[in-house]
């Protein structure tokens, strides 16, 4: 007797809820399916874009590294060129005197 009462209350409440939903369950399912479909397609697009972007970005990084390597090559060639310079042949002479001063703090130089 008591259980029947409980079922009646539950059914009554569900019935009330059904009365308050402004659209059918079928429409809800359509909506959910639509959202899932778009999400799925969107996910595929995101994954494909991610893969393409990763490859492109990696290639871009490698290209930049290669460009930096060319600049580093120029720097090292510059160092070699400077090392090879015969300063005496260019008219420079060794300093006749070197003066050493004690290192002071930056503030002391103000």
């Amino acid at each position: 007797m008591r259980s029947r009462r409980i079922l009646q209350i539950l059914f009554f409440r569900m019935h009330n809820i059904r009365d308050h939903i402004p659209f059918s369950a079928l429409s809800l399912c359509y909506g959910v399916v639509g959202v899932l479909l778009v999400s799925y397609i969107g996910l595929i697009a995101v994954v494909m874009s991610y893969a393409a972007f990763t490859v492109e970005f990696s290639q871009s990084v490698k290209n930049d590294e290669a460009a930096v390597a060319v600049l580093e090559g120029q720097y090292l060639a510059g160092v070699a060129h400077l090392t090879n310079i015969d300063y005496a042949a260019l008219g420079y002479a060794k300093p006749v005197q070197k003066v050493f001063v004690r290192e002071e703090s930056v503030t002391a130089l103000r």
Partner: protein
Amino acid sequence: MRAQFRSRIRLVLLFIILIALAVFTRLYFIQIVHGDDYSQKADRQFAAGGSGLFDRGAIYFTRKDGTLISAATLATGFLVAINPQTLSDPEAAYAALSTVAPDALSHDAFLAAAAKKNQVYIEVVHHLSDTNGQILAKKEIPGMQILRERWRYYPGGTLASQSIGIVTYGSGDLLAGRTGLEATYDDALSRSGDSLYKNFFAELFSNVGNLLVAAKDAREGDVITSIEPEVQTRLQDDLAKVSQKYSSKESGGIIMDPATGAILAIATYPSYDGNNLQNVEGTALGNPLVEHIHEFGSIMKPLTMTAALDAGVITPQTTYNDTGCITVNKAKICNWDLKARGVIPMQQIIVQSLNVGASWVATELGQDTFRSYFTKLFGAKTGIDLPNEGRSLLGNLSKPQQVGYDTASFGQGIAETPIQMIRALGAIANGGVMVTPHIARAVRLDSGIERTLDWGQTVPVFSPEAARETTAMMTAVVDEKLQNGQAKIPTMSVAAKTGTAQLTDGRGGYYTDRFFHSFTGFFPSYSPRFIILLYTNDPQGVTYASDTLGTTFLDLTHFLIDYYAVPPDRGIATSSAVTP
């Protein structure tokens, strides 16, 4: 109200469906309608097949301010391949190719490749620059593919090339490091090459263990060396000048921090350019500084002296009677000028480089003690991070004849690698403790974490007092003897020693007119930051190392003092101005 809401929902649904249709349509056009075009475009831009592009970690030099400069990196460009079966007009194709790469391939070679109609893929030009590759790709020549390519590139060319090493195919079809650091750190530098092209989700679910443990990420990275590019350039330049001036067979040098074993420069001449190995013989690819052994001559005397001081058999004040020549086991041992000095103190053995004096010290030391010290100094490999390290020849120290010990005391009859020699001499500079020489100081993992390599293993050989007493003797060499005292630097104590050894004739004897010159030194003498070892093998028309390498050593010393702004350690206590 309810009908109005329902119509809104339908409107939203319609909108979503339209978007979905638009995406579908776009995908249809991309994949089905224009699929072939995109596929061909991709073929022109990226490497074909599953081989992927070559990838490998970098090796870096470290400037004095900590800036990393690539010693070995990757260059990016294009390769040109042809399909002889679809290449309809080889002459036009070659004309187009020669406009961007005129010297890359001869006309005959191209036509010969194009004539191989039974093949579908022949690579005709490699290492085409980015710009030229793109120009050629735009011409869309039928039967010609312009494919992405990456290759190992050494920005410094010959700079430390024998220590950096090379990457080649070897006997198999796998590109790997074969010499130098490329071989030693091949595990860290190699790349699996699969990370970019895997399906993200497949990778996520099929390789969960790797993602969690990341064993690969803990191994793969870039190698950071302690080689300073400007110091390395200076050393190579100086060695080239010495070799060319004296027509030496080979010259070499190492500059090292004696306290840590970090190598700042390591070079030999002749060398090679790792970017162009076409005319390089296989034997030239090794590193003579760690693989070849030499009898170094008198730069061994400081080690003999330190051993005797450490053992307590002599003191700096001990004297002996120098007779100019002695006979030991029927062999005659003489000073370099055959002259007797009379009764003189120990320091003169180092300052005047006296063979008779070194022999006297070896005799005082005794065979067992002498062998014990020299086995500790040279009996084992140094552990440097370069492949194929050689072992010393100490056979004479296993025999009972005293002459073997006497000659060893001044660096003849026993042979060591240059890296063993600088490590042993470094013990004098480093308070009697030998360190492990090394080139790589850290591995920078792909995660960005810098893993510092542990080179902390040390071998105590001498007491600090013995090392200091020998240092004082070596400092006197520069202050009093080198260039008749003109080499003295008033504001910097420099310890040095020359070495001139007779070359073996291959028949158990020695040439009387062919020499191996060596030179070592460190500074500031009593708190050294640098130790230098130089040698030149078989220089022509000159007898003594002070003539061939003295100027080079001083040039490097002055350069290092200026470049690193090494503060003066003497000569400015009472006056602020000095005249060199």
